[in-house]
């Protein structure tokens, strides 16, 4: 994460631990667009995704003290909460066929609801992630996204893509190492 953004996030989290609702509102405004996009990518249902977004930030509010800066950034922590919430909902629903039909129309949804200054700040990290993803092969990216956004096991991915399990594992392993290398190489 960019240092400034990370410092500010840390400050907000400290205030949240001290029960300051305004700090949560700020953190929400900062990440709502990403968290909503994430939840929508997993759930493909607007109402359900919104429920997940509310849940995620409510969890941030209730469990801010469990955040451990030693283990990663605030943004990453929020995404971990979001993934567990959204994938949980997806599994409960068992609506795998919706995932298979995977309409790309979602990407045409209205983007960003941020002020330009907030946009500039977060777009730095955003650009790095987009670049890091661009370096992956299509196969690596597909396997990683299926596992990450749809919570599929390696075996499920293999059968979905009609590839041997070993190939899927190799793609995920190499793709992850590549991602990690690009993202830490760009660390400011």
């Amino acid at each position, binding site marked *: *994460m960019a240092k400034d953004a990370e410092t500010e996030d840390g400050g907000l989290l400290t205030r949240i631990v001290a*029960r*300051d*609702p305004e700090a*949560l509102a700020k953190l929400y405004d900062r990440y*709502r*667009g*990403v968290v*909503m*996009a*994430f939840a929508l*990518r997993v759930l493909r249902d607007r109402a359900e*995704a*919104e429920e997940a*977004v*509310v*849940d995620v*930030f*409510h*969890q941030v*509010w*209730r*469990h801010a*003290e*469990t955040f*451990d800066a030693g*283990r*990663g950034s605030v*943004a*990453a922590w929020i*995404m*971990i909460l979001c993934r*567990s919430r959204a994938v949980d909902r997806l599994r409960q629903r068992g609506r795998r066929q919706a995932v298979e039909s995977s309409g790309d129309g*979602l*990407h045409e949804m*209205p*983007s*960003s609801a941020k002020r330009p200054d907030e946009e500039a700040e977060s777009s730095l*990290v*955003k650009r790095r*992630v*987009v670049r*890091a*993803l661009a370096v992956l092969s299509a196969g690596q990216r597909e396997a*990683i*996204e299926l*596992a*990450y956004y749809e919570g*599929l*096991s*390696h*075996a499920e991915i293999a059968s979905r893509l009609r590839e041997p399990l070993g190939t899927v594992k190799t793609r*995920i*392993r190499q*793709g*992850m*190492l590549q*991602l*990690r290398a690009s993202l*830490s190489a760009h660390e400011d």
Partner: protein
Amino acid sequence: MDETAGGMNGRCREFDELLPLRVLGDLEPAEAARLDAHLGSGCPRCAAELAALQESLSLLPLALPEVAPSESARARLMARVRAEAQEGRSPSASSMGWRIAAAAAVAAILGAFVTGTIVARRGAAVVAELHDRLDRQSAELADLRRQVFQAKDSIRMASAPGVHVFDLAGQKGAEQASARVFWDPKGATWQLYAANLGAPPTGKTYQLWLITPTRKISAGTFSEGGTTEALGQVRVPDDAGTVVAAAITDEPSGGSPQPTGSILLLGKL
């Protein structure tokens, strides 16, 4: 020396293969156990590698085009949060309650320092997560139960012999609206399903009437517009004659003994 421990020896290398698969999906149980034992032995290199992989993975959603949630999502969140913030500061809590809370806070802070290991933190997070999940599921269950009761009621209404059905059509001022009313004279109850009915103007409410050749009998009021459901009770006096129609009018809040507003929906039996 324990073969799973230690940082830079050759054995550590084998975990390079497993770590990326660990953060994203599933390892064979035997592989998972081996990796966990190694991480549990406190290898700083592998722990750092795992954290870096997790961080990279967690940043992926930042590449998605952002989507704004609705304003109502923010309002729901903040209402919950403000209520809880208030609760936390409530002066009505007994002094004993405060003392216990203070002791718990001290214990929590101490606990965080003393047992500040990843394992303990994970444990606390898992417990909190489980509590939270239980709360949500209890709420969902209560909600489902309520829905089942309602559905049972609706099925009974729609299928019981002797239940009358009115199909109401929108009249002047509410042309788009429609409604269906089930009326059970024996049970003296009714249920209504309306669609495309605007919300009543401020200070007004909707009122359902059962109409006989000589009387208009109030069945009750409801005030939600849109696609809505309502239910209530109505007893038609024996001397009122045969009910031939049902109508919905708008009336001042609280309803009227006899209709005063315009007829918005009307359906004959």
